[in-house]
């Protein structure tokens, strides 16, 4: 089996599910003839036809609204937003409609749709093409927010997202779209939503992260191991609903926790995780929780980007401080 990248795994999952479920429809800007600006939908229109892979006009609100309408009729739309920064014209459709239909109709309608969007920094792009605003969406009841961090998890989680009966915002960390390759069996096996993945077990400190930051965090964990510090690394994967139990079990074992995220710090997903640990696991802690995070400012352009993004150095020094806390 040949190894594939994260974006190829997205394409493979889409293709698998389209082949096995006629109700799956793809829609978005340039997704058809052009194969998507990141090539995530490459060749899908030629394989499944223009009826099932719809090139839309440049109109995000319409794209998501259309997906919501389709979803209420038994279809399973997968909408692409070209960059996460372009999703805001569709904010109304996502927050006021997609995520509330089920509640308002008391379960008579639900909204099985997926919105895929590349997100995150590290590709030298300007602000809207680089930021991580997952917390805006995680705040909304009725919406799942899922972020894969490897080709395997992209494949398995995207299949799960399409099969899920609720709206899922599926955020793809574009910095690692082509960074690593893995063998990804194309057997249509989904991975569980709403569960964290423990990528490395350890007893000394818990490192909680998601998306592209998983890679920096794993590297730090490996170098810590050389110094005799065994870090447990948790990939949150589903940001909302949050699997706090896995995180708490780990913190109970290690007593120390560092959260690593690209997003701006205030009111972030990291803030929520820290709050829940404080509520339910305060007495496990031997040291204050630390967040290694982006800054409370607009994502800067490439000259300052490396400074903005959590680096291995920043993660390492936060771990060191946490470990050294009496």
């Amino acid at each position: 089996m040949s190894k594939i990248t994260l974006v190829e795994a997205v394409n493979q999952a889409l293709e698998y599910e389209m082949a096995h479920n006629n109700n799956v429809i793809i829609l978005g800007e340039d997704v058809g003839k052009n194969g998507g600006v990141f090539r995530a939908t490459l060749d899908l229109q030629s394989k499944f036809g223009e009826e099932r892979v719809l090139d839309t006009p440049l109109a995000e609100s319409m794209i998501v609204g259309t997906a919501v309408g389709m979803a209420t009729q038994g279809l399973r739309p997968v909408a692409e937003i070209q960059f996460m920064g372009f999703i805001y014209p569709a904010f109304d459709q996502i927050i006021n409609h997609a995520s509330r239909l089920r509640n308002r109709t008391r379960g008579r309608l639900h909204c099985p749709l997926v919105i895929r969007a590349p997100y995150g920094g590290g590709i030298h792009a300007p602000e809207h093409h680089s930021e991580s605003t997952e917390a805006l969406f995680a705040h909304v009841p009725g919406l799942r927010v899922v972020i894969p961090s490897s080709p395997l998890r992209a494949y398995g989680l995207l299949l799960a997202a399409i099969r899920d009966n609720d709206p899922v915002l599926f955020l793809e960390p574009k910095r690692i779209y082509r960074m690593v390759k893995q063998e990804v069996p194309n057997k249509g096996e989904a991975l569980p939503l709403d569960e964290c993945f423990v990528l490395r077990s350890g007893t000394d400190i818990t490192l909680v992260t998601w998306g592209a930051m998983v890679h920096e965090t794993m590297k730090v964990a490996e170098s810590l191991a050389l110094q005799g510090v065994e870090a447990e690394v948790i990939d949150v994967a589903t940001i909302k609903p949050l699997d706090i139990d896995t995180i708490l079990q780990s913190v109970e074992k290690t007593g120390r926790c560092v959260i690593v995220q690209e997003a701006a710090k205030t009111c972030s997903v990291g803030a929520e995780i820290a709050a829940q640990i404080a509520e339910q696991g305060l007495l496990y802690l031997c040291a204050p929780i630390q967040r290694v995070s982006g800054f409370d400012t607009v994502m800067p352009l490439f000259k300052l980007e490396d400074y903005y993004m959590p680096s291995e150095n920043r993660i390492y020094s936060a771990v060191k401080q946490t470990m050294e806390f009496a």
Partner: protein
Amino acid sequence: MDTDARKLLLEKMLYARRFEERCFEAYMEREIGGFLHLYVGQEACVFGVMAAARAGEDAVITGYRDHVHGLAVGMDSKLMMAELFGKESGCCHGRGGSMHLFDLQKQFYGGYAIVGAPFALAIGLAKAIQLQKRDQIAICILGDAACNQGTFHESLNMAALWQLPVLFVCENNLYGIGTRIDRSTAVTELIERAKGCGVTGAQADGQDIEAVFEASKVAVEHVRSGQGPYFLELKTYRFRGHSMSDSNVYRDKSEEEQWAGRDPIQILKNRMLESQEITEEEYKSLDKEILDTIENEVVAFARQAPSPDVEDLEKYVLCDTDGDSEQGVNTNG
């Protein structure tokens, strides 16, 4: 148009072409980061419009393919190049980049990466001009695909309802990234959609700068004389991919070749050669002069300019809370 005016426009278009080509090289050399959308092939549009308007005085707002718009309002190309290089000396101090050029002195309210957003911002500019009775118009320049965004309809409706002093210029290059206009748009003559919103207007050949200029004179006169908004649709074509990462596989080669034969610079140059207003030698020496200026002044300036300071990262987020007392020029309101 007299010879001097023609010469000036030819020079401006050629400068813009060479500027964009130099940006391409700098991007390949990784001196420019982020995304880069070149205006090659479309030069007649913005220069034709701004020749009819008051460049540097009328308020201009546009999308992300904005370098040449910056030149057309009279921005200093050194500060533009420094911005593209992400440097502190850039027009946004290296915070905006290629898609977000800005120059308050030139009343250039900037490039915007979010397609469609400037339509609505232009309504605000125009409403303020109207309320404050300023001798100025607002000019909003966007692409064809942008006209499918909700803000197009929302904004044109307001412009007509309030009879705002705003000129909408649509650079219709037939594509939004890889999607051809007839695959995304039911009414492909965009002027018809503007009329449907109650905004009058016209179409013009966007490859012929004199045609653009003549049409723009009518348009600007209409808006400036208080007759309300105007929509000018310019038929044009971008000669390169959408951005540097564009595979450019979606266009027919024959279509590309056909448009390549309608290069706005060649059209004006040939006209001037025929009427003996310029010689091939003069053109060549002009070209060489431009290339030298761009290399030795513009690129050299951008290269040696300092990078932004990490200490400033969290400044200018909110007024007064970042320890910086500098206020916007609009705070006297």
